[in-house]
């Protein structure tokens, strides 16, 4: 259904213009086109399918109630991904304040260090994702968003649009984000492979 719609439907810019003029069909078309993608990005960050859907729907509610401005570089897809990833990371932070699971994970990490094992091999499968999410959320906003968007399949150009940066900067942001995440997770550090750069 979505593929058929995508081949037959106009560009995001045209649909956005329709949304601004009260065309429900245009809004539906944008939803149909982008919902699964932005939901997937949110899901990677928050883990919970229900929470991810809420975040994705919130983004569309915002788009519906206050459509983004029609500028030359108006980019609905990038805007949706940016809004969703920001909201998702906010949710992760809020959750972390509410719960004490991070302390539990920290205790496990202590165990990891004592046994000189890869933390991702030691924590249970269900906690692995939480472990990654917790550290991902600690990265600077631009870095963590770039990582999530890249793992969601967006191109360098699309990530640049979503982040509002020059396309040439995306590689640098990604490289620093990956280095920071690896260092936070400790992967590779415990096997004596510390980096010097």
């Amino acid at each position, binding site marked *: *259904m*979505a593929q058929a*719609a995508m081949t037959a439907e106009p560009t995001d810019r045209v649909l956005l213009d329709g949304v601004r003029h*009260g*065309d*429900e*069909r245009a809004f*539906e*078309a944008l*939803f*149909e086109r982008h*919902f*699964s993608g932005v*939901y*997937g990005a949110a*899901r*990677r*960050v928050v*883990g919970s*399918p229900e929470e991810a*859907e809420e975040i*994705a*729907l919130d983004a*569309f*509610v915002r788009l*519906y*109630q206050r459509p983004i401005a029609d500028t030359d570089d108006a980019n609905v897809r990038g805007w949706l991904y940016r809004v969703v990833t920001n909201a998702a990371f906010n949710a992760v932070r809020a959750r972390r304040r509410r719960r004490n699971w991070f302390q539990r994970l920290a205790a496990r990490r202590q165990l990891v260090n004592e046994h000189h094992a890869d933390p*991702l091999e030691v924590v249970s499968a269900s906690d*692995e*994702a939480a472990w*990654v*999410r917790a550290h*991902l959320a600690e990265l600077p906003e631009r870095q963590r968003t770039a*990582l*999530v968007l890249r*793992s969601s399949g967006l191109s*360098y150009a699309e990530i640049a649009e979503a982040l509002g940066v020059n396309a*040439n*900067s*995306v*590689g*640098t942001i*990604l*490289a*620093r*984000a*990956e*280095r920071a*995440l*690896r260092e936070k*997770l400790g*992967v*590779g550090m415990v096997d004596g*492979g510390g*980096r010097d*750069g």
Partner: protein
Amino acid sequence: MEAVAMAERRRTRGCLTEGQLRLLLDAGPKSGAERDHLAGCRRCTEQLELMRRDATAATAALARLDDARDRTDAPEVIAAYGRLRSRLMGDRWIEPDSRDSHMSELWNRRWVRASGAITAMLVMMLVFTASPMRTVANDFLNQFRVQKFVAVTIPMDMLQPLQSGLLENMSDAEKAEIQQQLERLGSFETTFDLDQLPAPVTLAEAERQYGPFNVPGDLPADYATVPDAYVVEDGGASLTLNVGEVQALIERMNLPIFAFQDVTADTLTFEVTTDPAVVLQYTTSDGQPLSVVQTKSPRLVTPADFDMNDFREDLLGLPFLPPDVVAQLRAVDDWESTLIIPVPEGATSENLDDVNGEPGLLIEYEDGAAVLWQKDGILYAVFGQASADAVRDAADSMERWQPIAE
């Protein structure tokens, strides 16, 4: 300052920038110059390898955020849009009954199908449990066969109270969620293919395929004496219910069904198997049909750890079932061997003491009649566009078909 100085030194030496190296990991060298430089620059190749290690570690870590559930419990786009619509009701141009848009039409159509699925499921459960067919041999506790028939008048709008009472009070989002639950209830498999009806054969060929069968000796006037014969192969169907999903749906819809509460199995499978059947179709010169069907009773096998008696009581207690229907069903005392024949309002039924030597059931409807009975383990049905007397005479005259000697 040190980073700026380093970047400047790299630029002046022609080294690749951090961003260029990272892009190179994904897309390879953009030019021969990049490739040449990389081949001769130890600093850049070492930097690239460190970057590759970081990227590999980050990719592996991020992959842990994509578990298998992402592919199975991701919300359906149309259902999610239904939930979004319910949040936006009253806002600008989203109207509750908006039906002029593509997604709305799709969504509404899906709900109509879901509503139909509820109806079909309940009717099937009702038929299964109000008239399970217990075997004569009774070798298995939960295997059923038909021994006789009883007609129960079913109002055509019997399920309307279900839709109006339970469903119309729900929001679009709730309906969409129930639709999703219905789709997860279980799976239905069958060997039957209604698109592949058998070809007509001669009576001799039908006997070769099916074995001995009976034909009416006394046909109503104007019917051809030689019918088209069809032999339907044996087959089966199974319905496997996901117990957890059924329990969740029952709870969600607040239905007074308790038979699933003590089930410990993850799934329950109900199976129906049928033997071959022979169908004879006689026609008049103007094409009016009279059909004769004969087959062994289908067998219904239900899960051993599922109490069909409890389930029958649950279904008979459903609030939307009309009291007169419940009364008719409760009057079926030997329900385990009786097949309920739903009869629409306006049709009449009569229990017959003697149809071809056995008790039977006559149903008269607007433009025809049907007679059903069981004899020696074979179920018979004669029906068509003829008077009740003519159909009954045809049924009474059933006898073993014998090929006419040349």
